[in-house]
């Protein structure tokens, strides 16, 4: 179900995560509205991926709240929930270091994403029931459509490990979209891509937002990409939030410049 523009989809407040004595993220809060592309940036080790892991259920945050508001559904506090339940509620993600299923074909990788939206059991399969056949066909059709969208339909039967780096990243996006998310989290989607691939990715992300009606939360180091496509940006450093605003505001924010370039030296 499509969300109306401007509707709040995700709210994170007071989020902290400790690893032993180390506070990896400290009192982070942000919001995401329907139709938005929001970027989370910051130097290496700032805690951006930890934020993603807390939101998607890989970690249970030490403190704070993560609440999602599925369009047309009721608002849910999701910290502590299992990752598969969170995915079922409509949040999907990709990884900084690509995590495809290497010994499965490109098509199968996307079909795995459909798992939580289908329900046929082994018994259905043995009986080859009408439901399981129809479902299987729908799964394949939808997966092909997504592969076309990311430009991988012609390599659908290749093993995913044989794809180029850029193609693997796009496959991860297709698999994430297969779960029917209303919220897509992309962790450094442009990492390791050449300028041409990055440019194509840029267009892909904007197109996905329009066609799939998903809001996108993005971690990225490629500033050109971030400034190009983001509506709003949150900046983190050492686990803390140091700035937020539009791309233009962020570019001119002295704190951000300092975090990235180091303090100005006064002679």
């Amino acid at each position, binding site marked *: 179900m499509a969300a109306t523009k401007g509707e709040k989809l995700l709210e994170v407040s007071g989020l902290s995560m400790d690893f032993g004595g180390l506070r990896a993220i400290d009192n982070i809060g942000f919001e995401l509205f329907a139709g938005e592309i929001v970027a989370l940036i910051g130097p290496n080790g700032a805690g951006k991926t930890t934020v993603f892991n807390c939101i998607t259920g890989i970690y249970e945050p030490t403190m704070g709240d993560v609440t999602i508001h599925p369009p047309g559904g009721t608002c849910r506090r999701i910290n502590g929930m299992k*990752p*598969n339940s969170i995915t079922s509620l409509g949040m999907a993600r990709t990884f900084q270091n690509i995590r495809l299923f290497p010994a499965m074909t490109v098509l199968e990788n996307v079909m795995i994403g459909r798992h939580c939206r289908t329900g046929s059991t082994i018994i259905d399969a043995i009986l080859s029931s009408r439901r399981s056949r129809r479902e299987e066909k729908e799964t394949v059709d939808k997966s092909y459509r997504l592969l076309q969208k990311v430009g991988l339909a012609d390599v659908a039967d290749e093993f995913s490990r044989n794809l180029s780096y850029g193609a693997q990243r796009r496959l991860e996006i297709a698999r994430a979209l297969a779960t029917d998310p209303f919220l897509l989290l992309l962790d450094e989607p442009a990492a390791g891509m050449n300028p041409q691939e990055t440019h194509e990715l840029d267009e892909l992300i904007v197109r996905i937002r329009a066609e799939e009606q998903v809001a996108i939360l993005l971690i990225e180091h490629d500033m050109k990409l971030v400034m190009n496509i983001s509506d709003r940006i949150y900046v983190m450093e050492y686990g803390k939030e140091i700035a937020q605003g539009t791309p233009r505001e962020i570019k001119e924010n002295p704190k951000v410049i300092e975090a990235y370039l180091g303090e100005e030296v006064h002679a």
Partner: protein
Amino acid sequence: MDFEYLFELLCSGVVKGSIYALIALGYTMVYGIIQLINFAHGEVYMIGAFVAFIVTGVLTLSGHSGLTVLLLAALAAVIYAAAYGYTLEKIAYRPLRNAPRLSPLISAIGASIFLMNFVQLVQTPDFLPFPELISDFDFMEPISRYLSSVDLIILIVTTVTMIALTVLIKYTRTGKAMRATQQDMIMARLSGINVDRVISATFIIGSVLAAIAGVLIASRTGQINSAIGFTAGLKAFTAAVLGGIGNIPGAVLGGLVLGIAETLGAGYISSAYEDVFAFGLLVLILTLRPSGLLGKAVKQKV
């Protein structure tokens, strides 16, 4: 050289090996998904045989024909064993999911000993005669020297079961989820797969295979007791390791190689040393090819 004798041994080896393979599949599937050697797997096989024995006893009294009784007994064994596999995972392994790897292993050994003694207590520690349910087929008469009618049924059932398993894993929704879980459990979760349910399904499928093997062996050897699970489990485990644990075709190959090696050794040298050949082969393969016949070497990052 007496080729006829060799052929006779080979046939018997293949029959034996295909049953080892059926049990080995349960070990290898569970290992593939949660890296656990399910030592209680042999006991599930033994329980399958016992359920079949009990059901057979009841049904024979009510005067059904042999093959019907066998089918119904096998069905009961399969359902019962599946329930055992499912419960075993829930009670003995799931609470230890995030514990160090040694803990579930010890728990598995404990579960194995418990189940063996449980059956010994509620049934009997003695050998029980398993009735002969399959009467000899007439068309098997000319080759009965190589292959008995029971052997033929064993070969057919194991082949069909293995094909069904392959199709299940390759093409069904559950099978895909199993492969995904095996390749990357966290990513499977994030793709919306209920991993706990997939693990349960794996235990159920493995137990079903073990129960089928239990009924088949019982009708071949004609006797069962509460300790048969231990030996068969150990052999099947050997077969799984031989083929490369975690690898499904490997388990089948390992089972066949083991069965043939055993019968050849027993036939040409001495049947008293049957187990020595089986485990000697294991030592040999592990020395020369530690990851098994079809297993891939595990690269470990340091």
